[in-house]
């Protein structure tokens, strides 16, 4: 009976975290490559991926509301609510990405495309990190309440974003997918280190955070974590990067990266538990026994 309060956000919010992160990551990677290396061919796919995926994620956010038709009301409290701030970030992101797409598609002046690339990178990073900030500011969920969470989600957004961009490039017969695969591999290695540091630190944090870590490592979430985040999201891309050169390897690695990114959001969403009240869950009573 008490369980009904524990799970308030479910799979729809996981979908949002994943899709918005991936879309923002794709645009951030594409626009940065344009700014740093002068790449032109990934600009359009990056802008399209950003718009389509972030819109799809936002639709999941709206669908999760109890009164979806009143969604516009969430814009009204940006002073204190992360949801309001996030709704504004998502709106701005979509506007700038749409402008970027139009400009890049029409082949506008390079100066304009450059400034819009900068704006896109900033807003894409804001969108990607916001998915982590949304959970990270919640004091009542000790496992999330940590400045490392937005950083981790941003790195995961960049790895899934480069994966998605690489897949599109591959299907279009582009020449950049190898380099995108390398970027993706770099982000994945960074992300893996961070996930394990995160769990290690949380395991030595409060008893409530420790309870969440046990859920992830050996409890109800062990399968999505070990199978999805570690197996699919780390080992499969690593294996295909090292042993399967060429298009097959890049495609396999990218698809596995997307799956791993999804399971990362899934694991973290459902591991965020409230601190227990006395008597609330007997299986955890060993934690408070002397």
């Amino acid at each position, binding site marked *: 009976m008490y369980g009904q309060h524990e799970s308030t956000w479910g799979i729809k919010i996981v979908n949002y975290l994943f899709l918005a992160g991936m879309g923002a990551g794709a645009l951030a990677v594409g626009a940065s490559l344009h700014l740093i290396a002068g790449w032109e061919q990934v600009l359009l796919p990056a802008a399209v991926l950003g718009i389509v995926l972030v819109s799809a994620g936002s639709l999941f956010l709206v669908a999760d509301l109890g*009164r979806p038709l009143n969604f516009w009301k969430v814009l009204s*409290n940006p002073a204190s609510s992360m949801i309001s701030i996030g709704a504004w970030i998502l709106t701005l992101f979509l506007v700038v990405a749409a402008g970027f797409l139009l400009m890049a598609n029409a082949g506008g002046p390079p100066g304009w495309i450059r400034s819009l690339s900068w704006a896109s990178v900033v807003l894409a990073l804001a969108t990607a990190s916001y998915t982590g900030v949304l959970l990270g500011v919640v004091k009542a969920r000790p496992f999330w309440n940590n400045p490392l969470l937005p950083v981790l989600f941003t790195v995961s957004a960049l790895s899934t974003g480069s994966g998605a961009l690489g897949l599109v490039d591959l299907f279009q017969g582009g020449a950049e997918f190898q380099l995108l695969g390398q970027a993706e591999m770099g982000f994945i290695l960074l992300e893996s280190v961070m996930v394990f540091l995160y769990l290690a630190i949380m395991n030595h944090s409060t008893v409530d955070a420790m309870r969440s870590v046990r859920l992830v490592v050996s409890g109800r979430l062990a399968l999505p974590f070990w199978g999805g985040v570690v197996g699919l999201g780390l080992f499969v891309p690593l294996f295909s990067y090292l042993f399967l050169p060429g298009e097959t390897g890049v495609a396999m690695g990218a698809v596995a990266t997307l799956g791993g990114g999804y399971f990362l959001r899934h694991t973290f969403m459902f591991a965020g538990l409230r*601190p227990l009240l006395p*008597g609330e869950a007997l299986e955890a009573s060993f934690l408070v026994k002397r």
Partner: protein
Amino acid sequence: MASKTRWGLVIDLERCILCHGCSVGCKVHNVLPRQMWWNEVITVDSSGSFPHAGVYGLPRSCMHCRNAPCVAVCPTNASQRREDGIVIIDEEKCVGCKYCMVACPYGARSFNQDKGVVQKCNLCLSRLSEGRLPVCVESCIGGARVFGNLEDPASEAYMLIHTRHAVCLHPQLGTEPAVFYCLPGIGKMGGNRLVRTA
């Protein structure tokens, strides 16, 4: 005087006999749907063994926090804290994003599927305006629940908090709840488990 009002509850766990009368009274008065309880009594076993085994009840409802996290995270200002300390939900403004349920460390809020809004205890606001007590207080046969103004040193609630060293739940989170608990005899019923080290 009006600004010095802060309505709250003091619950004497020594007097609670786990009859669930408060839960049922609340459910009936507020006409709550299936599976929704604004006030429920959690059974806490003391983990002792015979002859020291024991059990006590922990009634849990909205804590009407001074620093209410639910109010801070609400994107539409539907969750508000009134002048008299009662935290309410304006169902007209609520869009059902459930961020308040995520932010509440006490699990005091529930989602109403039919209405698409979040609901919780409002200390029986309609009864208070008629000068009556919240229904959970009136239906407590053990006299365990005391309602009163926590800012008024002459109120029974204020005196109970100070003479019985009442505690609130999860003090480490800094929410400053307006629901206080007088612990069952320390050492006798395992009541010390209530005061957790953070």
